[in-house]
């Protein structure tokens, strides 16, 4: 039972949180212009590294807000949690 540091609420037990998959997968600007392959990449394909991974989490049983986290998929440890960055600077 890890403690996860919600950027708004502070450390809370992991059962309060919901995993939201890879972070930084932005909704495409113009989906209609994407090829089928590119759209499929967006909808279905995600990285699956052993090691450091940027993820999205939601404090679903707490403040209900989403945030970004960096986690080591090998040790499960959270390396950092941060409020979502403004959209302009996101990759």
């Amino acid at each position, binding site marked *: *039972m*890890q*403690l996860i540091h919600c950027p708004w609420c502070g450390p809370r*037990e992991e059962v309060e949180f*919901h995993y*939201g998959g890879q972070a930084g997968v*932005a*909704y495409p600007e*113009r*989906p*209609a212009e*994407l090829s*089928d392959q590119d*759209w*499929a990449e*967006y*909808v*279905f394909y995600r990285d699956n590294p052993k090691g450091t991974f940027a993820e*999205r989490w*939601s404090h*679903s049983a707490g403040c*209900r*807000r*989403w945030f970004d986290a960096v986690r080591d998929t090998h040790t*499960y440890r959270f390396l950092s949690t941060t409020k*979502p960055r*403004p*959209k302009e600077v996101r990759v």
Partner: protein
Amino acid sequence: MSRVHGYGRVDRGRTLSFTFDGREYTGHPGDTLASALLANGVHLVGASVKLGRPHGISAAWTEDATALVQVERPFPEPMLQATTVELVDGLVARGVNGQGRLADTPDPARYDRKHTHTDTLVIGAGPAGLLAALSAARAGEDVVLLDDRPTAGGSLTGTEVIDGRPALEFVDDVVAELARLGVRHLQRTTAFGQYDDGFVLALERRTDHLGFDAPAQRSRQRVHRIRALKVVVATGAQERPIVFEDNDRPGIMLAASARDYLHRYGVLAGREIVVFTADDAAYAAAVDLAGAGARVTVLDVRENPPLDWKSRANDVGVTVQPSTMVTGTEGEERVRAVLARTTDGGVRLPADLLLVSGGWNPVVHLFSHVRGALAYDPSLGSFRPSGSLPGVTVIGAANGTLDLAGVLREGGGPDTPAAGPEPARTPAAVVWRTDGDPERQFVDLQRDATVADLGRAVGAGLRSVEHVKRYTTIGTAHDQGKTSGVLASGITAELLDVGIEDLGTTTFRPPYTPVAFAALAGRGRGELFDPVRTTPLHDWHAEAGAVFEDVGQWKRPRYYPRPGEDMDAAVLRECAATRSSVGMLDGSTLGKIDVQGPDAGVLLDRLYTNMMSTLKVGRVRYGVLCGNDGMVLDDGTVLRIDEDRYLLTTTTGGAATVLDWMEEWLQTEWPELRVHLTSVTEQWSVFPVVGPRSREVIGEVFAELDVSNDAFPFMSWRDTTLDGVPVRIARISFSGELAYEVNVNSWYALALWERLLAAGRRFGITPYGTETMHVLRAEKGYPIIGQDTDGTVTPQDLGMNWVVSKKKEDFVGKRSFARPENNNPQRKQFVSLLPTDGRTKLPEGSQIVELYEDGKLPEPPVPMLGHVTSSYHSAELARPFALALVKNGRARIGELVHVPVAGVLVPAVIGETVLVDPEGARRDG
């Protein structure tokens, strides 16, 4: 009797009666069932699980793997360890032969849980743990101290000397000071699992030792959920057996356990004792038991037994035989003789108790639970913590420190008290097993798992000790590797001809000791297991005889049977009444989301498949939400309340999903949108008033409202009041009939419901439940998301292209509609099925097949065309009908397919989904 005067800490002033295997015995407060049985000379307890071999008592605490008992009174519990069951007056128990028996009556006891936060958690109140707790408390830390036995002191027997005083006096002083310092000190509390970030679960046994006097209001067991900044593991060590032939017989016991029975319970477990040892500690047992009157012979595997111990042993008449290995035993229900091999050949020693000591295993379970690394230590012949974990310290015997002075030092730090003089330790000889028949050499006594089983595992090609564990089951059940773990690693390493340090050991996992499900459930059982959500009308429904249906956590009336009616009869009556006159449903569980903000319309346009921003205030629009993959997620209506305010409805089960879905997009993708989302499901109660007479009912109750079709058209809503209470009414139809959905603040739900019923009485207004609602909507071909869909269905599959906007440049899911797979003509499409016999109600979930033109079924596997998603009897159609998803279904309308029902193929015709009032004439009344 084997009770020895002058020994033990049981209260001999009081006598307790108990029954074991139908015979009555006595014991004393402070006994365990095991110590009381041994005091009465009972060694045989039960029979082993797999082979049915006689089993007795092989240890004094949780490391015992053989003395499993079924407790019958105070309350039936299976598979308890006799060594940990505290004796109470009136206890009734029996030995377990094979399996235990669960109680067939509800457990009357209470169970609960408690959350605790602390600076330092110390696990184990032996000498190391006591001193660690004391140091932390003296330094001003908030401290919790747990210990699994009834009293503190750990392995101290009382014969030791600490700071010039008897050890147990020293323990009492420390315990008193801990209390003065405010340490939360719990005995009878077993830490059974350690998890990340200083989280420890512990089970406190609060009333078992009080027996029939246990106060009913006090929880029997409590799970402590402790979060600590620092965890100190001071869990001690357990003696390791040595494997030899027939090592599972009653009367074979760990040496330190026999010493524990003497000093703690005043029980001499045997009179004619052979001690088989590879380690010094067994000499303490030999000397003490001889001093209490037993005849003792020590067989030491080592060529040079420790001189100091040898002379102490000789002083009390104990003979010591070096370079000797036990190779077997005789006796059926209790050991009769020990067979051994010396350098001179074989010997047979008569004995009624064989004590064994192969050294010590640090209790590293809790450290291993959190992935603490373990390394083999050849001087211990066991695994000990290697490296460190943040926030976790392992001290004392759990860390592999076996001398008292060292233990005190690791616990006490600068405040270490002085230990009395101890004999210097000579290294243990590392011996896993002696020669003998591997089929009768037991590694895990509880599982009847033998050296031969390990051989079979290795022979099957297994090379990892983790795999060997799973192949043999060694180290599972109560044992959890306490006695069997290191032996399994050692013997497996020998069989594989690798070093045990390279083979390693298994990873320990919680729980360290068994925990009852009732304790884990705590108060969350029975009605409290899962929250129940009820509408404000629940009591009215119950009074009206409603049969309830669980929809998510909601209790919804399914139908209201009249005397003599079954579900089919009640539903047909409710359907007919609604279609012919007027019915009313409690739709309060409908999910409702209030969407406010200047960008509310923008957000909804991006999420719904159709346009919402163009909806006029006062109007209602049906909408569908899709995932990025284009599959239907949920549906519902959208009411435009104001320029910057909408009220969405969702399915009852989909409310939380939709709110989460919208929040996710809003927060992570479009945080710039100025929108707030609020669930208002429980604030509004909703009653659809449905049927051709509904206008008259609504018109009568809300006299100020113009309910004519021109003034109040379909898919619009109006605000009104009733006796000053605001009411919102929407013309939405989920049945195809003229219908008004009446919304009111839930506080006024019952009053309004009764007003509507009163107004409808002259029309025979009929309350109907979810089953009738489902039939009515199915007759109109309205899908229920989650019943007729399963996450692989698009709006187009449902025949709802009209709900997918062509005008909007984009919305979530739109791009996926252009993918080739989404346009595959073989996709399953939503259609109706009419069984041609006009009688059979096709079971929901049934598969749909088609026959060859010659009328024969294709060879298995028979291709499946689809499946039945909804199926009912229809009062309107006077026949059963079904909805289904069928491959290329719309192009097959009119075709005959078959549905296997109870082994018979039922023919059915594919049809349009709308079976009642296809031209929609009824909805305006």
